[in-house]
């Protein structure tokens, strides 16, 4: 177990290193450089700025400096926001994204397990049909449409009630978080519901369920202690990729709901070609996602002891 964890961790580090390298060279292959902006610079100012940002060095030296700083956890200074450190940007905005993402994963996980179990219990009856119809919609409709529809619905509801039940956009209180995280989690919830349904259906016909029934256990106890626990396992395996999907899906939701998260910042930085911010957030996000997948994999071994990690 320890050996396996260490091996995965090492692999993760190599992946992060590759992400950083790919990001660095992708950024530096862009024609032009960050200083070729809208302001005309004199030779002298340009030379000074290049020296300040280290752009006068050969590419490999710059790469070395970048890696050196990265090892110390320093992502550098933003180009478009003068003297603002990328670390500060991440520190300020990542907690917002993380809160949104955790809530969305919670919604998706709980909702997926609950709906999936319900569909399996009411197989081919109307609750099953209704939920599966919703699931098909959830898989087919893009997240930004859900975001727009969610906002539209809030406007209508607030207008209809005559007071603001839930805020339409912005961030700060729990009320701000509910609808965006629900919208963000919807696609994943639909996917998990489908997974949970098929895993539940498989388990309903298994031997241990029949044994439990013949022992005289109540239907509810079989459901909670035998079926649900076993059916939940495949859902846990896909939680890692699901977290990744939710983290990047957050870009759109943050844009639509005007949430000051890191995703919105990343999109902005890309649009302004703010190289250090792009590199910093990519490496940070990349590392986060890679390690989330590892954590979920390790968690799986803990939840289901039958799975041998090696």
């Amino acid at each position, binding site marked *: 177990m320890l050996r396996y964890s260490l091996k995965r961790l090492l692999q993760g580090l190599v992946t992060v290193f590759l992400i950083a390298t790919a990001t660095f060279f*992708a950024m530096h292959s*862009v024609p032009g450089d960050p200083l070729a902006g809208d302001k005309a610079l004199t030779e002298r100012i340009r030379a000074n700025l290049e020296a300040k940002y280290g752009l006068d060095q050969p590419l490999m030296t710059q790469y070395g400096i970048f890696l050196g700083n990265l090892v110390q956890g320093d992502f550098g200074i933003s180009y478009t926001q003068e003297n603002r450190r990328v670390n500060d940007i991440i520190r300020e905005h990542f907690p917002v994204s993380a809160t949104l993402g955790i809530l969305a994963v919670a919604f998706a996980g709980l909702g997926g397990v609950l709906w999936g179990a319900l569909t399996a219990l009411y197989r081919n009856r109307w609750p099953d049909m209704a939920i599966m119809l919703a699931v098909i919609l959830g898989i*087919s409709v893009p997240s930004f449409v859900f975001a727009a529809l969610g906002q539209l619905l809030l406007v209508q509801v607030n207008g209809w009630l005559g007071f603001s039940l839930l805020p339409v956009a912005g961030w700060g209180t729990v009320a701000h978080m509910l609808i965006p995280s629900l919208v963000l989690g919807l696609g994943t919830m639909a996917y998990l519901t489908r997974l949970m349904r098929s895993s539940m259906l498989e388990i309903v016909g298994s031997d241990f369920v029949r044994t439990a029934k013949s022992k005289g256990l109540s239907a509810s106890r079989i459901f909670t202690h035998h079926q649900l626990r076993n059916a939940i396992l495949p859902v846990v395996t896909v939680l890692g990729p699901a977290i990744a999907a939710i983290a990047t899906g957050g870009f759109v939701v943050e844009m639509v709901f005007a949430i000051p998260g890191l995703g919105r910042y990343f999109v902005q930085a890309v649009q302004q070609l703010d190289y250090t911010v792009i590199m910093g957030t990519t490496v940070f996000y990349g590392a986060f996602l890679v390690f989330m997948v590892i954590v979920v994999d390790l968690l799986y071994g803990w939840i289901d002891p039958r799975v041998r990690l090696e």
Partner: protein
Amino acid sequence: MTEAAFTADDFQPAAAAHSAQAASRPSLSYWQDAWIRLKANRRALSSLYLVIGLLLFTLIGPLIWTVDPSLQDLEQISQPPGADRNAVVVAPHSPWNGVARQPLGGGLGLAEPPTTQSVRLAWEPLPDAAGYRLYRNLFPYEPGQPLGLPLFATFNADRRHFEDRLDLKPRTYHYSVAGLDAQGEVTGAVRSLEVAVARVVTAQDAQDIGLVADAGQLSPGDRIKLRAHPLGTDYLGRDLLARLMAGARVSLFIGIAAPLLFIAFGVIYGAAAGFLGGLADQALMRFSDFVVALPFLLFMILLRVASGVQPGESGITPMVLAMVLLSWPAAARLVRGQILQIREEGYVSAARLLGGSAPYLVLRHMIPNTLGVILVTMTFAVPTAIFTEAFLSFIGMGVAPPTPSWGSMCNEGIKTMLTTPHELIFPALFISVTVLAFNLLGDGLRDALDARMRSAE
């Protein structure tokens, strides 16, 4: 114990009973069998028709509806479908000095019939007003509520007329005039007026947008019909149906070309790894593991930035390339697994025994036997690719602006979704229906083609 005596007759061959040998039903190939299964699946079949319909819409549609998707109809901006297209021809605009006033009732009144060319307003003096400010609103005046868009302000108490020519639409507006005190504060005296603006067009404009061949044919007072837009227009007055068709080309091209390419690459890569085995297999698979670990959307965005789309380019090729670069490992892994299994099958050994070369074995025996799985993967890859394109275009990192795609149309539509929701609803509907159709078709194909992957439903 009795002994039976055999005669020579006993050793004659029995009469050939052909009925035992004959196949009672025609023999079916794998694909014929799959097609029969698919046809029995109503959901999959209707989604197949839907996919065919979408392809027809994309390929044949522009031949039937030949409107240029980039043509701007400035007379009809952000028109919902089925909007009134009638317009009255008027003389060109001439300046107004505010003299020709009609008798006013209720404080604020119209000097002339209101048209989209101009709304000419005049008002009676308000008590204690040292000046006036005129507002335009979409909603009726209510005390305490905002008055709307301020159009005009003056500190001359005798200047009591205004001509509104600001972006007038054929709809109902609510104008309000508020008295100002000497400090420029609103005194509280407000007069309001509801104005229903009629759509007009000058003869010259009608000629310019191609409604008539010659402006001389029209005289003021004539009624004409503006261009038809079955699904309305967008915020620049472009025909939404034509743009949806042009956008379908981009979205479906990316959605089909990218999976085709990356699955083709993945098949070759996976087949090579699976067939070679050993160290080469390990090295190839380790590399694909690293590509899988890269965060997909972040790298799509990065590659898009790195490819640096120049003005005038659509940005479709870099997007397809980026998708191919990042998406092939899933197909490679799948095909490798299949090849590893098939490699041990008897028919492969038989072919090898007969002297088949390695490329022959792979191309003739192994890859055709994985085609079912590959086709299913392909069908599920299409909606993912369409989603990715829509997502990237939505955050402004996809196809470059003049080229329409469903995602970029959603991006434009979402800005005006409260006032003109049709600009968002139509492209969103097309994305959803396409993704739905390919997902259901994929489910059906999986059930029909591959017994092992058959879903539990």
